[in-house]
């Protein structure tokens, strides 16, 4: 990693504000940059939303990670340009000439290595921020058929066979996770599937078990939710070692949900996301589950209602700033307005604090595709409630490390049985 600290002046954006503005406007790459040598490979492995360049903005509260848009057409109009000056990278704001020091995470050596079966490791999984993201199977069923029902912002289906191996072997995933843990300090692996006709959790189960028993990492699971009569699958996944479940319902306004997520609307409906989120969060510690939403498409008031709902059930909100990803059906949709997004993220931080949702407890998990709730602490005044909440989080972090994470970060047997899961899944009603 290269870089230095942020140079502050009263007119400058703070790290949280710069993160949001870069998400909204994108980043041009200046001629002085040497990203071939300095940066991670750009990869779209993440519902097509991670098309950008990974950056870290240093700050006094915390460093802020982001995946800055660099490929999309709207970037051409951005005032932000990445330049390399004296061996370090800066983001130059052409509107006022201000410069922000940033760090460019270097590409891990293991990206170009191959697994024992010959798979290129970066085609099995990539770092998204500081965690390992793995699409177990990115052949989302919503993309198939004469009239595809894919989520309109997404390009996952268009990536199959193009930029990534379609289905990952468990042994390959274990090898990649081990290297990522040893060499990149990864503590968390996030598994995702596209829509798999209701079998997504079943597909992910063996990967979760293998990671727990052979590598020792925190694990997250993201699938289209199952119906209520199959909620037992979440219990079995928890027994196999799943620490976190995320539910991407994207839009709180049901009309937007139906319009932009036709596959999810037709197969499970918005209520299934709420039911599953509430079920899983009810069984796990506060803040262990997340509701994932996209800000900048539906009216802002709906996004704020989503944040209230998610924090109200004890989960944490994962808020993506909408990116009109190149190649997606929404490619021509405008990128969101900075002021509106700042308002959303400040609201998110305050809602989490009000609901007592823990932020930043797990070690070394920085998500680059979203504004993390604790990134948004840059957006509020550092008053007494702020300081008290920060102190509370510090204590909780120490307790969580001692009581939970230390064990989870070592390989250990899990109590659940894969065979039991598969037997029950085979006999369960559709």
């Amino acid at each position, binding site marked *: 990693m290269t870089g230095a600290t942020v140079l502050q002046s009263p007119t400058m954006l703070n790290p949280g504000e710069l993160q949001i503005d870069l998400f909204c406007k994108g980043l041009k*790459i200046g001629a002085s940059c040497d*990203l*071939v040598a300095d*940066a991670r*490979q*750009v*990869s*779209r492995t993440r519902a097509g939303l991670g*098309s950008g*360049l990974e950056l870290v903005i240093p700050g006094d509260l915390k460093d802020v990670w982001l995946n800055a848009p*660099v*490929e999309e057409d709207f970037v051409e109009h951005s005032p932000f340009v990445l330049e390399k000056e004296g061996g370090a990278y800066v983001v130059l704001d052409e509107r006022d000439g201000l410069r922000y020091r940033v760090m460019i995470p270097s590409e891990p050596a293991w990206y170009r290595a191959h697994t024992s079966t010959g798979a290129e490791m970066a085609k099995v999984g990539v770092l998204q921020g500081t965690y390992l993201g793995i699409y177990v199977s990115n*052949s*989302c069923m919503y*993309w*198939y058929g004469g009239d*595809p029902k*894919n989520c309109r912002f997404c*390009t996952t*289906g*268009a*990536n*199959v*066979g*193009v*930029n990534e191996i379609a289905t990952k072997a468990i042994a390959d995933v274990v090898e990649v996770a081990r290297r990522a843990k040893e060499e990149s300090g990864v503590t968390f692996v996030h598994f995702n599937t596209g829509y798999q006709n209701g079998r997504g959790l079943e597909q992910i189960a063996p990967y979760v078990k293998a990671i727990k028993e052979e590598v020792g990492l925190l694990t997250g699971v993201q699938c289209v939710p199952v119906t209520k009569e199959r909620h037992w699958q979440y219990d079995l996944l928890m027994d196999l070692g799943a620490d976190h479940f995320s539910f991407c319902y994207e839009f709180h306004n049901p009309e937007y949900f139906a319009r932009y997520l036709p596959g999810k609307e037709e197969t499970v409906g918005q209520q299934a996301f709420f039911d599953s989120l509430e079920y899983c969060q009810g069984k796990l510690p506060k803040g262990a589950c997340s509701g994932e939403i996209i800000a900048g498409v539906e009216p802002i008031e709906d996004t704020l209602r989503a944040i209230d709902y998610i924090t109200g059930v004890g989960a944490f909100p994962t808020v993506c700033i909408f990116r009109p990803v*190149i*190649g997606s*059906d929404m490619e*021509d949709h405008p990128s969101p307005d900075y002021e509106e997004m700042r308002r959303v993220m400040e609201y998110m931080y305050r809602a989490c604090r009000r609901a007592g949702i823990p932020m930043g407890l797990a070690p070394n998990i920085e998500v680059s595709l979203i504004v993390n709730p604790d990134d948004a602490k840059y957006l509020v005044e550092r008053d007494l409630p702020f300081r008290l909440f920060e102190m509370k989080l510090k204590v909780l972090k120490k307790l969580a490390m001692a009581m939970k994470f230390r064990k989870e970060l070592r390989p250990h047997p899990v109590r659940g049985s894969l065979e039991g899961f598969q037997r029950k899944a085979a006999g369960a009603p559709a």
Partner: protein
Amino acid sequence: MIVAREKEGRPEGLDEARAELLERLLVQVEAEDESFELLLPGSGLEIRKAALEDRPAGRPRILLFPADRGRLVAFFYKPSRLSFSRDRFSYGALYLYAAKPDEAAREFGTALAYLAADFKPAAKPPRLKRSLDVTVPEAP
């Protein structure tokens, strides 16, 4: 019409039927009003709008490459803007069957119209496949 060629040659791995189909498709490209350039990056044969006095070369491309079941695949994509990125931004593909050359030629006409329109949604080929059942080869 074809106004520029990066180099002469044809993609590797073409059997006789697909070689014949490719020749027919290139005659179609030559007959178009739009100016195209042919590239041969090693992964197949690429077509893009050529650079002219008043415009740079187009970013959208068609990559033609052979696949199983006697197919030539016309893969639509935009390359990354970043020199170090291998990402290709997919807009889908058409499958052209050497055993059905007339149908393939009709399909390819819609492909060229889509390329000429810079992949604007209104020009999307009716039989465009967004999700592919083939692995798109990378340039060596």
